[in-house]
């Protein structure tokens, strides 16, 4: 009866809070995913370049791989990296809101810098426009045939400079460049690049840098990388039947895609936001051959010049529907790849958590109950020594001692099972028996360090409580020391232990990075680490999001327990 009342009261106290927390659970997850998404997309270097370039042993690139811009373009498109990163972007009034279309990261960044400095995108784009002509000019007025060798070198140098003007990030650099370009022009038998110089001058004179102090939000709509990743093609038009075809002077356009007919070839073109000239991205031999990647799906166009029908090839489901996309590294489903690693890590972590609690809770209590006693002193010293041992140091030493025929070859040195003897359709027990040796050393290296932490916290908690009045009174009432400990102290001093509990999972995943690479265990840590090194965005995201989700869940559990053990904590109010 009283028990029931208790429960009711407890639910009354905790219920609404838990409900609220569960509601918050979702946005938190989204924030986590967003955060990791931003982090991963800001990583230096271009995943596409990485994918297209083949790397051989010890960083030797194979001479027989070729990565031209076009293949990069296509890969980028296939991976959907040519889209805006998020629904909207924060910028300044000076910025250009379609920069993301630029394939090249460097150019994008320098263009932004320059715009910010000048403070007016129109001027900058004017300048970029002026860059189109000079190269052609030179090609026309100085064909290779008429030049001697030194002149040819001048020329290629000049062309290189002109091209590299795109990547100029500040007015100062611009000056240096233009100066040297002038010199080269002279040495070629000088001529003027009038339009360009005008543009540059206007750039320098009537820029208005106040513009960059005005914040502005650019809205990109739902066809962006994050949306695709999180929700897939939800909300994106699923089936287009007939495209609205606008045919003015042989230009056909369908939302942001434009096609033009040039000497009986159809070209798909995109206007380059920088030079405003058209980039021909793909060519098709007939209108009905046109296909393109849009809203995360391949769209194929069939039909005549007047009437076009688009077929959707396949869509993306998005994380919400359990589709973490394809790994950049090997094109496998991230879901499958990560599932194994999770289970591996999970078992390791679980074992080590149980082990460490088994050891540290009693030690903590004991140390506290005899505070300042011999056991307290020694246990603290020993545990601290353990805690202070860097895990990679211990792991290395463990390897050298217990997997080394020079000393004791007791345990295998790496991996989680021996492919030579292991058999998929063994019974669970046989598997455990086979795999146990592989887990011993890692488990030790995982666990030992947490002893000190947990037991110290436990001890602290217990000491806190022991000095509380109600414990004193309990003692005064003449309850046995043991009863006091178990009944009053244990219950209340559990709080800190609980707070720690929630932190264990991410700590384990993070901390396991080194251990897993030392012991060569295909767990979350190793997978995540490799993903980071390989710029494998989908994998990074998955690792962060999943471990994040699990942790947040851990918090909720912790908070509930929190409320269970300490009635004085008011959560809901």
């Amino acid at each position, binding site marked *: 009866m009283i028990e029931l009342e208790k429960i009711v009261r407890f639910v009354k106290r905790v219920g609404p809070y838990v409900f609220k927390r569960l509601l918050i659970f979702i946005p938190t997850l989204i924030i986590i995913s967003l955060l990791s998404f931003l982090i991963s997309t800001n990583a230096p270097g*271009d995943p596409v370049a990485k994918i297209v370039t083949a790397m051989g042993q010890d*960083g030797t690139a194979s001479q*027989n791989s070729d990565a031209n811009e076009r293949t990069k373009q296509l890969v980028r498109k296939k991976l959907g990296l040519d889209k805006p990163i998020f629904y909207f972007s924060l910028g300044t009034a000076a910025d250009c809101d379609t920069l993301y279309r630029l394939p090249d990261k460097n150019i994008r960044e320098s263009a932004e810098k320059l715009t910010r400095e000048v403070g007016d995108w129109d001027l900058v784009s004017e300048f970029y426009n002026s860059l189109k002509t000079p190269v052609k000019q030179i090609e026309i007025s100085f064909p290779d045939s008429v030049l001697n060798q030194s002149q040819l070198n001048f020329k290629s140098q000049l062309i290189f400079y002109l091209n590299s003007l795109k990547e100029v990030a500040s007015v100062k650099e611009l000056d240096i460049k233009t100066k040297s370009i002038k010199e080269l022009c002279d040495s070629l038998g000088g001529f003027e690049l009038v339009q360009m110089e005008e543009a540059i001058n206007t750039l320098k004179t009537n820029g208005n840098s106040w513009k960059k102090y005005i914040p502005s939000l650019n809205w990109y709509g739902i066809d962006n990388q994050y949306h695709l990743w999180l929700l897939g093609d939800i909300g994106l038009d699923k089936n287009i039947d007939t495209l609205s075809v606008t045919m003015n002077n042989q230009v056909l356009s369908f939302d942001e895609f434009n096609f033009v007919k040039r000497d009986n070839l159809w070209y798909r073109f995109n206007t380059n936001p920088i030079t405003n000239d058209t980039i021909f991205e793909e060519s098709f031999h007939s209108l009905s051959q046109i296909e393109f990647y849009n809203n995360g799906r391949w769209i194929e166009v069939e039909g005549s010049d007047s009437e076009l029908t688009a077929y959707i090839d396949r869509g993306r489901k998005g994380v919400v529907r359990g589709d973490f996309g394809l790994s950049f590294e090997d094109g*496998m489903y991230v879901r499958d790849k990560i599932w194994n690693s999770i289970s591996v890590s999970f078992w390791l972590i679980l074992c080590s958590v149980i082990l460490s609690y088994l050891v540290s809770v009693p030690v903590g209590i004991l140390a506290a109950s005899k505070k300042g006693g011999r056991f307290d002193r020694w246990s603290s010293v020993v545990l601290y020594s353990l805690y202070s041992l860097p895990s990679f140091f211990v792991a290395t030493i463990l390897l050298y001692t217990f997997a080394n025929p020079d000393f004791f070859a007791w345990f295998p040195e790496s*991996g989680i099972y021996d492919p030579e003897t292991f058999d998929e359709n063994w019974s669970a027990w046989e598997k455990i028996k086979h795999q146990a040796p592989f887990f011993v050393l890692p488990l030790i290296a995982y666990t030992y360090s947490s002893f000190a932490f947990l037991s110290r916290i436990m001890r602290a908690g217990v000491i806190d409580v022991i000095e509380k009045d109600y414990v004193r009174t309990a003692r005064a009432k003449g309850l046995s020391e043991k009863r006091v400990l178990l009944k009053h102290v244990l219950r209340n001093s559990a709080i800190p232990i609980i707070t720690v509990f929630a932190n264990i999972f991410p700590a384990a995943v993070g901390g396991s990075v080194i251990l897993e690479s030392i012991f060569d265990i295909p767990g979350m840590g190793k997978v995540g680490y490799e993903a980071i090194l390989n710029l494998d965005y989908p994998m990074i995201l998955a690792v962060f999001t999943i471990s994040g989700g699990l942790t947040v869940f851990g918090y909720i559990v912790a908070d509930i327990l929190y409320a269970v053990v300490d009635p004085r904590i008011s959560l809901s109010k």
Partner: protein
Amino acid sequence: MQSRKNYIKITSILILFFTLLGCVKKRDLSQNTVVFHMATIPESLHPFNKSSGPKNIILHYTQKYIHQTDVRTFKDIPMLSKALPDTIGDIKTYWFELKENIKWDDGTPLMGGDVVFSVKMIISPLTNNPGHRSIYAGVFDDVWVDENNPRKVYYRAKSIDYRAKGIFSGIPILQKSYWDKDGKVDNVPVKEIEKFKFSAEQKRWFETFNGHEYSYNPSKIVGLGAYQVSEYEIGSHVTLVKKQNHWTEGDTCIYNLAYPDKIIFKGIADVTAVKLALMNQKLDGVYKYGPRTINKLKKKDYFNENYYTVNKDMFVYYYLGLNMKPDLNKYKPLFVDQKVRRALAHAVPVEEMIEVIFKGDASRQVSNTSPFNYRYNDSLKPIKYDLDKAKKLLAEAGWKDTDGDHILDKVINGEKVKFEFKFSYMTGSTASRDVFLMTQESLKKIGIIAVGNPMEFGVFYNNAQKHDFEVMSGAWGSGSGYSDPGQLWSVENWEKNGYNFTGFGDVLSDSLINEININIDEEKHLAAHRAFQKRLYDDQPYVFLFSPKKTIVIHKRFENTIGYMEDPSILINTLKLKEEFKNKKTN
């Protein structure tokens, strides 16, 4: 304190339990299984997608090629064909005839159709092999089968091309009837395939063709090789098992032998783990390993009893790339002058590097071609380490220490520039790290400051291609075969951000490259090739450093323990278990 005792009991029991389980059983050496080390397990075993070093090694045993370079002689030997391709009429067209006895796993014989299909696949724009398609697409003009001999295959090159003769050595032959039962891609022509309009259905077919089912599912990965993939754990291992009554049985060609019943490619990235695995006899074969690592093991007697080791040279060379045509606002024109580049070549302590980093297990590299390639121009002598010479050359180029701060300086268009540059290199590669540290120290002595700038592989190569570096320390790997110098040295590949990082080259060098490529007459080809090496040597766009050796380790319980210079370094299929081991159970 009862509770405490219980706790201690429980925990100690748990730990004991684990330790007892832990006592590991010794490996049974009597089995006819080869466990072969690999630094990384390839991300896919699809015969065509994403070629990578380790993958090609596995393909050696699961696939077969029309002809292959013999690892012993570096000469091509016919494998599936009766003889090497031969030209007829115009020197653009070649032909070869397939052997009769070759059968697919389902018993159907190998026909010309399969070859044509394979070529189609490798050059088709829908195949997911952007990395290396162009090499083949650039050569093949057309391929067809003789009307009255279904085993006779003709192919025509786009132009007169040195690469045409050996082009098939890289193409694993696919079984048409397996991949394309109902002839979905029959109407796809080889000629001008990139212009062909694929139907929606064909696109879907290619989706499955590229799909990861055919890259990861062992049973789906089939080929003419004598071994079949049975297990495939990414990041862990690949297991091959010997096929029963395979067509290669009784064949004596070293590539067609198949002694081991089982081959396991075990992926161990960590150096220490590999060492320990060797000490515990967990590995039977290790190819391509740093001699320095193994040398330490050689000091242990039991290791030498168990393992046969040999050091072999590699077709890999390390270099320092000097940006010859720097973009002016980020980088000063430090290395434009050929004298400066020569000076650097004199100031980099290559010999010492070989001593310190490789313990002498590496050889000088003087140009882009390995001394072990017969095209090598042996009239080129290594540039000596000579700081005074370097100083002299720098002085001639106008670099002097005018302000007495022991850093060279020079007035370049108006402003005084100090000789100080960023030295880009890859993280993770200890060799290039040590190269940097030693170069830095040596250059400091002649008043040049090198600032380290380590970065991750992707960024590193991206910057290199964008010419966004001053000095970069990289490495190129190739084979005994011919590879077109244009890829690395043509001006075009500099302008188009290809692999000509440094900006080497002009009309003359380009014409040389062209000569090398179009002369299928060996004499002329060689002459041009050597002239080109000379040119590189004089210009020093790279400071050519060294070509390290690799150590090959094979367990002594096998016969035919031979290591080869060319990949796959060890012909696993030739490893034959010694009799005395067969009936010796170790436990």
